[in-house]
């Protein structure tokens, strides 16, 4: 979840939104040559972050199982 994301790297949602904002800015012609290189660099970084999110796995079965053990040990609730 969001809270657990690495703070130094924007999470994929923020990265995606920031990227869209930069695109809109460039599209609107609001960026001058001075900022352009900065923005392009930033956008490229955001794209690579977002791409990584698509193709990397998050989650660890072993850790989840360990956490579940504690729960499963409890007596089962009546439905």
């Amino acid at each position: 979840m969001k809270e657990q994301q690495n703070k130094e790297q924007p999470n994929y949602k923020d990265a995606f939104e920031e990227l869209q904002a930069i695109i809109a800015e460039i599209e609107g012609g609001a960026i001058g040559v001075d900022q352009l290189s900065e923005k392009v660099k930033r956008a490229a970084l955001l794209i690579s972050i977002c791409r990584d999110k698509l193709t990397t796995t998050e989650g660890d079965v072993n850790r989840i199982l360990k956490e579940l053990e504690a729960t499963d040990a409890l007596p089962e609730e009546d439905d």
Partner: protein
Amino acid sequence: MTTSIQKTLAERYTTAFWVKAEMNRLNPHPPSGHCYPELVEKRDGRIIAEINANLWKDDYQRINRRFLQVLKEPLKNGITILLLGKIAYDPLYGLRLRIIDIDPAYSLGELEREKLETIDRLKKEGIYAANRSLTMPLLPKRIAIISVETSKGYSDFIQTLAGNDWGYQFFHMLFPAILQGERSPASIIRQLRRIRTVLTHFDAVAIIRGGGGEVGLTCYNDYSLTREIALFPVPVITGIGHSTNETVSEMVAFRNAITPTDLADYLLQCFHNYAVPLQKASEQLTDWALRIMRDEKTILLHAGRYFRSATGHLLTKRQHEMDRSIRTLRQETTGQVRSKRQELDWARQKFTDRLASFFQNGRRELVYMERTTALLDPQKVLQRGYSITQHAGRLVSGVADLKEGDMVTTTLADGTITSIINQIDKGDGV
């Protein structure tokens, strides 16, 4: 006595009759193929009547076939039925109701009513749309799957996810449950509750069934199950795999797909929705950067060219202006000098003229003065008859300084006389 009961009942209940009951337990007896159902009548949840029945193999098979056809459910426990029965008493087996037929349409109506009741109840409690109003994460990457490991639906689902052509990576974990029949609601609820305890690891829960045919889906209308799904804190998506009417579980789920494969496609679509703008952004970015650089370069080039031509032009213009100024200056100064010189010449001429006349006047005055002076020469005055009288070496100009008896000297033009004053008369002058 038993024979008497048998006879009495046979006389009293000559024909079969339709009666409504609830199938408390079907009690099938697999070796024989017969069933021995336990029928009850309930009021406010409590059993108020109960009777044991016989359902012979052939009747059972026929009825069950029609149930599967009409209800998509087999004849099972807990179902409300309208049956055609005949009372029989057997001295050995006691009083029994022989079931000849069951009307599946009635049971279907009952199931439909129960389903509507569940929907109504969820709506009244305000939780019907709870799960659907959640927000699916932009990338639903971590999926808790409630399914059966060996089921076709499960393998379809994970294969579709894993075998995608775009390299999208999902994390999924199976929470095994029974997905069909009466025991499934409790089983699914149990797994949903387990998932709740490790919820931070998951973006969504997928309930996957498939390969089980179109029967045994009534359990997905179960109130407790639908409530659990509706109130689940992350999106619950369903791929239960059937083409008949949606069950309530599917209605309250965040997203429902007809098959597990469709559900996996939905998740892939979520990834596409993220990836496509990303790809586009990446292409556009390069495009824009290049275009902007090119445009700036052109502008710069033009500016340089313009600057060069403009400055050249300006320089020439200024040079011309300067030349003209110099020329004008020269002309102007020459004229000025000439005119000043003329003025000077003129002034000098005037001065010379003035000087000449000045001297002339002077000379004239001098002559005049000479003449006047000559008139005033004492010698000349003396010659004209005037004399000068002196007393004691001083000129006498009046009688006041003199007294009788004084000796005065009188100078004339040709000599002097010394005389003694006889008399002095004071006159009024000449």
